[in-house]
């Protein structure tokens, strides 16, 4: 800013100078007899064009600037190379700080900053139903609601819907299971990404009974079809039917995430589009220009109210809202990465304070050199600039090293990114720009204070032999301030790390309601037309289980619709026998699953009352169900629910009453930190509308050992059935805990570095204080002070600083705590136990850091100390 103002002043000055010159010339000409008009013209000619003259002058100034800059750089490099111990240490500290910052930034860039691969992605939103009254605030919309939102809204250019599907691809190559998206025809125009090859499907193909066409993802096209350009127009085999490939999307395109590899027209029937009761879509919309998210939300709320009146049975208390697509995709990761960014920022600040301190300490030894420079005519401004150049050189070197560190660790960083994003390794220009920028900023930050202070040396004092201790003494206050702030920041970081670690341990200690050890799991998603018939499905599962159970190492095996924590929903409404009919807006809702008899035994979920589903429950016997404790407590409070009956609502209109025969323990379904939801389990033989998907096998030894054999048995039943997600159940829990663990680990590493730097800072300042006060200490000793007194003196000085720092840190923690709360589990942001233990630990380390200089001061010979200058 100041430079800008200076430049304007310089320009004005130059302008005035040139004009003045011209006027003087004019005057001369008039004095020689020319007429005023001619005089002016002649003056202009002689001048040769004011702009050119000004340009020349500007060039001179620029040239001089570059010359001094380059001179400063060369001089700075030489100085730093001579002080190699200091420079190496400073570069190392900076490399850690800047490297960590760049690493976290590259992660943040991918998830928060980099625009998604669509046209004008900031205008895209996801639209959700708000069914908080049944515990689904972020609910997948029903097609009926989607249609009504699309027809009635005034905020969106267009609204599209997608649903998930899986297809088994057969034909050339191994059978493979692919995730597919069925979308309304307006999806691709809405996203605005044209295909790389061929075309996308149009509205004429998106009708019930329309043609079987499909668009491939780039990855699938490369992987399975070897980038064959003639694939367009040819057929591929999906779920035993022929689909025509009409297009291939470009590389880097994905919607809604990286898993989807096929896009097909949704081909909804008009009945489906009027359905307000089944919730399974995802809806994306593009805001009209000039419409904000807030306005769109108001619009949607109004429509939701109207729908609630129009369809009271399905839509009472159901709201609607939209979320920007990028924010929605980032989810909870957004907060996590922001926390990490702030933490790494704190670490960088500590590094800066540390190096600033070191620079000030070094200045004490450079007095003579700097005084000479001043005497030789370098202005104070130039001296400051030279010192600042040194600092920036240091931090750029540190930054370069740090970048290398960040790239080296990119595999670790890639683990932090949620699945919908791809991490490129962090070498794009934005990250490099950030690294360069933050290096320069860091250099300026830690360099300015020392540079200003040093350049203000009193010349006469500095040249004296004694080295101007008085001047440096006042510098000590700055150094003390820096140390106090280091301690405060280190406290904050250590507290954050402790809270995160506690959170993680709390989460890990949660009993998920089942035993995940020694359980092998795999998924067999049965394709639809082939296994439409319930009896065919039953035959498949029976055959597989019959083959798998006798295998060596297998203790028990069972099938379930969805393993716990893999489906955050899948609920159905129901009516309880004997209870008054529910009013619109009040819904009995529970997760619905189908199981085979041995499933609960395999996962060691206890049976609390009644009996488990077994072989007597067939397709023709009495309809039964087993419910979990949460459901029993919620819908039959205070009663024994065994023998009670209920009936499923919705599309299962004609199903007779279902009898409850057993009650099981609760499994955590929605998340480790979410209490168990009401859940009902139906025998697989009676589940017309539910399929089984996940196979769980309890093994005697290593859960992965029987995996190959189990797969072979499944293929013996159906060779074309893909088997996916073969992994132990432990891995599922690890996945849930993974992000929390990683965050706690990262913060722990930062906190460790912060503690190290802060202790080094304390040590340095105390060592300096001691050397400063050597004479004073000598006097004290001569007057009778003991070694212990000297030690106490030094310790006292040091601990005073640390305590002030801790106090400041605690104050800051109180202020900042609420912001961290949402990421913590089982521990509050202001947890006193954590604060006290962190403070105590920091204090202990600080005492150690004070001890060494203290001991050295106490051990010094008093006679030597007295003579010290």
């Amino acid at each position: 800013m100041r430079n800008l103002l200076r430049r304007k002043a310089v320009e004005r000055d130059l302008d005035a100078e040139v004009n003045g010159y011209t006027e003087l010339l004019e005057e001369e000409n008039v004095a020689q007899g020319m007429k005023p008009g001619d005089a002016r013209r002649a003056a202009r000619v002689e001048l040769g064009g004011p702009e050119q003259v000004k340009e020349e002058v500007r060039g001179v100034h620029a040239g001089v600037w570059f010359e001094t800059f380059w001179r400063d750089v060369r001089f700075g490099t030489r100085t730093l190379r001579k002080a190699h111990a200091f420079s190496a240490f400073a570069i190392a500290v900076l490399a850690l700080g800047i490297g960590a910052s760049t690493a976290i930034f590259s992660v943040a860039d991918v998830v928060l900053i980099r625009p998604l691969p669509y046209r004008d992605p900031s205008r895209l939103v996801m639209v959700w139903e708000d069914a908080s009254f049944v515990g689904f605030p972020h609910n997948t919309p029903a097609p009926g609601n989607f249609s009504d939102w699309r027809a009635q809204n005034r905020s969106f250019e267009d609204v599209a819907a997608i649903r998930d599907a899986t297809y088994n691809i057969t034909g050339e190559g191994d059978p493979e299971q692919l995730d597919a998206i069925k979308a309304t025809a307006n999806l691709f125009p809405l996203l605005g990404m044209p295909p790389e090859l061929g075309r996308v499907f149009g509205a004429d193909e998106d009708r019930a009974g329309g043609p079987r066409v499909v668009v491939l993802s780039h990855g699938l096209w490369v992987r399975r079809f070897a980038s064959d350009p003639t694939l367009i127009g040819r057929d591929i085999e999906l779920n035993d039917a022929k689909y025509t490939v009409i297009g291939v999307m470009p590389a880097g395109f994905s919607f809604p995430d990286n898993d989807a590899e096929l896009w097909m027209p949704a081909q909804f029937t008009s009945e489906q589009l009027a359905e307000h009761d089944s919730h399974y879509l995802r809806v994306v919309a593009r805001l009209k220009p000039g419409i904000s998210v807030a306005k769109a939300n108001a619009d949607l709320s109004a429509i939701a109210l109207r729908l609630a009146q129009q369809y009271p049975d399905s839509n009472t208390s159901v709201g609607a809202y939209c979320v920007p697509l990028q924010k929605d995709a980032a989810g909870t990761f957004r907060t996590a990465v922001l926390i990490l960014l702030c933490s790494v920022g704190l670490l960088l600040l500590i590094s800066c304070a540390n190096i600033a301190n070191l620079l000030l300490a070094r200045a004490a030894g450079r007095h003579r050199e700097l005084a000479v420079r001043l005497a030789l005519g370098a202005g104070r401004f130039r001296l400051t600039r030279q010192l600042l150049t040194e600092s920036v050189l240091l931090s750029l070197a540190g930054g370069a090293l740090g970048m290398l560190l960040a790239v080296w660790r990119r595999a670790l960083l890639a683990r932090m990114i949620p699945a919908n994003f791809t991490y490129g390794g962090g070498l794009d220009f934005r990250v490099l720009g950030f690294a360069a920028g933050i290096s320069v900023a860091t250099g300026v930050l830690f360099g300015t204070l020392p540079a200003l202070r040093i350049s203000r040396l009193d010349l006469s004092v500095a040249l004296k032999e004694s080295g101007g201790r008085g001047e440096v003494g006042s510098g000590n206050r700055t150094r003390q301030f820096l140390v106090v702030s280091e301690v405060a920041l280190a406290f904050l970081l250590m507290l954050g790390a402790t809270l995160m670690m506690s959170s993680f341990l709390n989460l890990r200690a949660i009993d998920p309601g089942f035993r995940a050890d020694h359980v092998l799991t795999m998924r067999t998603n049965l394709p639809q037309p082939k296994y439409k018939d319930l009896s065919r499905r039953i035959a498949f599962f029976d055959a597989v289980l019959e083959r798998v159970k006798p295998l060596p190492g297998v203790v028990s095996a069972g099938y379930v619709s969805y393993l716990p924590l893999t489906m955050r929903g899948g609920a159905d409404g129901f009516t309880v026998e004997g209870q008054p009919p529910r009013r619109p807006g009040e819904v009995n809702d529970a997760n619905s699953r189908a199981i085979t008899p041995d499933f609960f035994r395999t996962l060691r979920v206890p049976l609390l009352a009644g009996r488990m589903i077994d072989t007597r429950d067939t397709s023709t016997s009495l309809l039964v169900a087993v419910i979990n404790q949460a459901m029993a407590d919620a819908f039959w409070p205070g009663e024994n629910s065994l023998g009670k009956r209920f009936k499923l609502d919705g599309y299962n209109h004609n199903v007779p009453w279902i009898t409850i025969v057993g009650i099981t323990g609760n499994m955590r379904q929605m998340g480790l930190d979410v209490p168990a939801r009401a859940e009902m389990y139906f025998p697989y033989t009676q589940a017309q509308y539910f399929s089984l998907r996940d196979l769980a096998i309890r093994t005697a030894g290593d859960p992965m050992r029987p995996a190959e054999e189990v797969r072979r048995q499944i293929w013996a039943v159906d060779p074309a059935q893909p088997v996916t997600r073969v992994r132990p159940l432990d891995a599922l829990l690890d996945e849930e805990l993974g992000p929390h663990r990683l965050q706690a680990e990262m913060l722990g590493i930062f906190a460790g570095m912060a503690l190290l730097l802060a202790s080094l800072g304390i040590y340095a300042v105390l060592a300096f204080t001691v050397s400063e006060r050597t004479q004073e200490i000598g006097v004290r000793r001569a007057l009778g002070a003991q070694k212990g007194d000297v030690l106490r003196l030094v310790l006292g000085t040091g601990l005073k600083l640390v305590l002030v720092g801790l106090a400041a840190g605690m104050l800051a923690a109180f202020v900042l705590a609420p912001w961290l709360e949402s990421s913590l589990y089982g521990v509050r942001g202001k947890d006193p136990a954590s604060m006290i233990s962190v403070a105590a630990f920091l204090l202990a380390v600080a005492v150690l850091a004070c001890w060494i200089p203290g001991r050295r001061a106490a051990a010094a010979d008093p006679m030597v100390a007295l003579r010290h200058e």
Partner: protein
Amino acid sequence: MVDQQPELLQGTLDLLILKALALTPLHGLGIARRIEQVTRGTFCVKAGSLFPALHRMEEEGWLSSYWGESENNRRAKYYELTEAGRRQLETEKEKWGRISLAIARALEAS
């Protein structure tokens, strides 16, 4: 005219400017006219060469400038020699002397 030899001119121009300001401060046009005068018209310095030279020499620390009033009470930028400038003048004079002596000797040699 002197503009045909820019390289030689920079070293020469610096010397001429320093000499012109040796006695009193002058404004830009005054410097040009003085050089013209003392070299009896051999060197006519245009603004395009004079201004860059003046600014460069000010950056080097040989000149300092201030705003003052001209003979006819117009505002003009005046330049004067600094201590360093005076020293530079001596250095340049000596250098110039050595160069011209060397060239003279070279021309005399057969």
